[in-house]
């Protein structure tokens, strides 16, 4: 009976949204990474599904209606890009070379570590897009033959980690320039880094939002190269 009721689309939607809202409340009261609404909602949904023996397929009957909004939301990132294009024009060389070098370096690191840990092709493809915003990472992971849900988990973890350690890193390395801070947060830890960047200042926030989109595009452009490396080594 539980499985039958859980197959109703509203089950998945109500469960996901209510846990997200609960996470928001908890995070306001206790701002620890575990209570980041997305992290909390994913973990608790899994716990509840497992506890009641509900299959992912039943849950996804409702989940798919949330999932389908990812594409239009990604398309809407164009609005952020358009609004921040003036910031980009002012420091175009620094921003584009920073992101370009960062993405290439990131690809190299992923390939090296994947070789070191003897990951297979599937896992390397899963990890390749990990620093970009979830929507783009999902698409890239799927098109390279990675495991989409694992990519989401890795991307979320990257975002939480980046938001937590970013400011400390800037302190250690004496990165004080607000543009540099924003670009680093956005390209290294996407939307969650941007949330932190917005707290750091207006320039940081705008630059971080812009960098999410630019890094996403850079990763998409570099994806065929990533695929080549993966096929070469794995």
């Amino acid at each position, binding site marked *: 009976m539980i499985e039958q009721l859980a197959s109703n689309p509203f089950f998945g939607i109500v469960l996901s949204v209510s846990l*997200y809202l609960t996470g928001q409340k908890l995070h306001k009261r206790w701002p620890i990474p575990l209570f980041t*609404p*997305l992290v909390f909602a994913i973990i608790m949904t*899994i716990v509840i599904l*497992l506890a009641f023996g509900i299959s*992912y397929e039943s849950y*996804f009957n409702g*989940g798919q209606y*949330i999932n389908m*909004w*990812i*594409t*239009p*939301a*990604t*398309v*809407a990132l*164009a*609005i952020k890009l*358009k609004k921040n294009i003036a910031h980009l024009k002012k420091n175009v*060389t620094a921003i584009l*070379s*920073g992101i370009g*070098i960062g993405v290439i*370096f990131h690809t190299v*690191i992923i390939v090296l*570590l*994947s070789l070191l840990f003897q*990951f297979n092709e599937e*896992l390397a493809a899963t990890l390749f897009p*990990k*620093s970009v*915003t*979830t*929507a783009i990472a999902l698409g*890239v992971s*799927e098109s390279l033959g990675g*495991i989409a*849900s694992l990519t*989401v988990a*890795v991307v979320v973890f*990257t975002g939480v*980690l*980046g938001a937590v*350690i970013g400011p400390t890193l800037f302190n250690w390395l004496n*990165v*004080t*320039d607000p*543009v*540099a*801070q924003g*670009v*680093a947060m956005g*390209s*290294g830890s996407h939307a969650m880094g941007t949330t932190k960047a917005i707290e750091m200042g207006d*320039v940081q926030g705008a630059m971080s939002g812009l960098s999410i989109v630019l890094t996403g595009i850079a990763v*998409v452009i570099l*994806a*065929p190269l990533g*695929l080549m490396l993966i096929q070469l080594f794995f």
Partner: protein
Amino acid sequence: MKIIKQLFWLFTFSFAGEVLSYLSPVAVPGSVLGMVLMFLALQFNWIKMEQVEEAGEWLTNNMAILFIPAGVGLMTNFGIIGTVWWQLLIVVFLSTTLMIALVGVTVQAIIRKSHKQSAQTAKSTLAWKGERVID
């Protein structure tokens, strides 16, 4: 009605992106192509910002919630995670830390260099201080 019209544009560009992705020989996510199309449309004034702004910003500002179902999909992959979890932790930790550090340092170095040059040519010493040289 306004929201419906705005969503209509977002859905139209989403579908256009998917169609283009299907037709393109290289694997590019349809959502990204849709975003590029939308950006071009805004840039060249084929559509106006007001025609998409409200619904679009609402979606991007609340994007996190959309990834719950995809993330819950993890439960179908416990097998793989069980065998490589600590390697994954190391990969994420190293790559994220190094990426943020490298990008931050690189962008700051290039900005300072270009400001130093322009300051020198203008015989100004203001930008030498380094901090907050932009704006």
